[in-house]
């Protein structure tokens, strides 16, 4: 597009294409983004003038966390095991639940009404953070491992159920037909055509979910599931920062360990299905 001729004295009416078209969209984006930033900064009560002082305070505070209290390592081993076991128990439960929801949510296996119900429940679950499920369960059943495990298991269904249902819907219809046309019942189709096809990927996802559940179980620990999360928030509120630092280190160890284990198992599952 030719640029508007620049007159020495710009006449207000003689410049309709003020902005080159190329620039209009980025400018509009920047404007909207800027407005959003200002509004959100106001809502978040961002105080930039306090920021340097507070950051300095933050670093000051960090000094209290060192050195970590190594002597508490022994006491923290039990809670760490609890966190690990919460995730370890919740993942298989979540897998079993997701199997049901996934089968019920696949277009090529379930009748339409069942699919709608299952997909809606999965969608609602995905929109519901685990911590809210846990708060409700704790309100009803009191604190303890049971609400924690159930909350994590329910939390797994949102992700695993959706992935499983999507994977089933992508199974080649020819495979299903060929098994069905030799007289297989619906369950035999599922057992011999659907499951072998989707199982390796599903197991890999389930193992990944175990990793996610470890993180989540640390988080949930602080509001009543027990474990290292509870120890951490207790230590913080008692101002035992060195002990809290030790709990953070144990958490890091747990998460890194879970990542390693999950990578190892996933590689095993995906490599020619020796486990699956």
């Amino acid at each position, binding site marked *: 597009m030719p640029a508007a001729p620049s007159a020495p004295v710009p006449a207000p009416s003689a410049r309709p294409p003020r902005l080159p078209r*190329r620039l209009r*969209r*980025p400018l509009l984006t920047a404007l909207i983004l800027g407005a959003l*930033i200002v*509004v*959100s*900064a106001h*809502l*978040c*009560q*961002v*105080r930039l003038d306090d920021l340097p002082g*507070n*950051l300095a*305070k*933050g670093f000051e*505070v*960090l000094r209290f966390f060192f050195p970590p209290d190594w002597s508490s390592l022994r006491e923290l081993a039990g809670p760490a*095991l*609890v966190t690990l*076991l919460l995730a*370890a*128990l919740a993942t*298989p439960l979540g897998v079993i639940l997701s199997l049901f929801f996934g089968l019920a949510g696949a277009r090529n296996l379930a009748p339409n009404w069942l699919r709608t119900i299952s997909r809606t429940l999965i*969608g*609602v679950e*995905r*929109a*519901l*953070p*685990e*911590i*809210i499920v846990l*708060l*409700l*369960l704790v*309100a*009803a*059943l009191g604190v303890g*491992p*049971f609400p924690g*495990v*159930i909350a994590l298991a329910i939390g797994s269904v949102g992700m695993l159920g959706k992935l499983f249902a999507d994977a089933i819907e992508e199974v080649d219809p020819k495979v299903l037909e060929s098994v069905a046309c030799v007289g297989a019942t619906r369950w035999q189709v599922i057992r011999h055509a659907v499951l072998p096809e989707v199982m390796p990927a599903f197991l890999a996802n389930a193992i990944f979910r175990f990793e996610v559940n470890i*993180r989540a179980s*640390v*988080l949930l620990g*602080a*509001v009543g599931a027990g474990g290292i*999360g509870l120890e*951490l*928030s207790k230590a*913080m509120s008692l101002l035992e920062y060195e002990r*809290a630092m030790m709990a*953070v280190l144990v*958490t*890091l160890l747990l*998460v*890194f360990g879970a*990542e390693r284990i999950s990578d190892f198992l996933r590689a095993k599952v995906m490599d020619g299905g020796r*486990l699956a």
Partner: protein
Amino acid sequence: MSSAVATAGLVAAPAYVPPSAQFRRRLLWLGGLVAFLVLGGIYLKFKPWMLFTDFHHLVRLGQEMIPPNVALLWNKPALFKTIGETVAMSFLGTLVGGAAAFALAFVASRNTTPHPVVRAITRLFFGLERATPNFVVLLILFIAFGYGPFAAMIALAIGSVGLFGKLFADAIEQVDPCPCESVASVGATRLQVIRYAIIPQVLPSVVANGFYAFDVNLRAAIALGVYGGGGIGFELQLAMKVLRYPDVLALILFIIVLITVMERVSDLIRRRMLSGSDSLR
């Protein structure tokens, strides 16, 4: 189970069919897993039958929550502010964290890093950062910034750096080297190569990941709110503490609607941005 099927299917079966090696291996894995879970359950004092013995508690909670007090929506205008707070937290957290991650990603990827040691250190930092639950960061920030959405927003920003730094860095390492070489061969400096050859290639994935980050952070913002970060999560926890269960259910419904709607909106914007990504460059 499958051996039973197999033996039942054979008419003139030999007296004993040993299970296949694969079947035995699977059985071993499964048995080990079950044994581990049972022992773990015993250690935890996990009582699965609680679901049945204590079911009446769940029913009572349900009865107390229904009907949800949806009237909050028009009786309590402050509610919109708390919802806005949650969205604002995740938006700013994603933006600030994403910008920091984007800058660090160039240091952390093999083809643009100033030095391999710097790259290793940055990668290690990303890994540590990803492993730290963001409520730990939040608890520390509360001491420095006080309770409220500002601390939660910074915690989200810090949390985003680890995850998205890694994703962005992986994207940068996977760019096609040809454009970089051709730009460099006409005399571009390192920064110019990044600007004209690498950024155009990674921008679509950065945008897509940014929107994904926003979805993740919105959920995290609700969870952080429960710990005192403000927003609708805090409101929910408050309603729970004073045992106003109809309010609790109403807030849960609002949260579900909020997350679903925001997911749709961010999906829509992302599609529009990526379809017109020419102008983004």
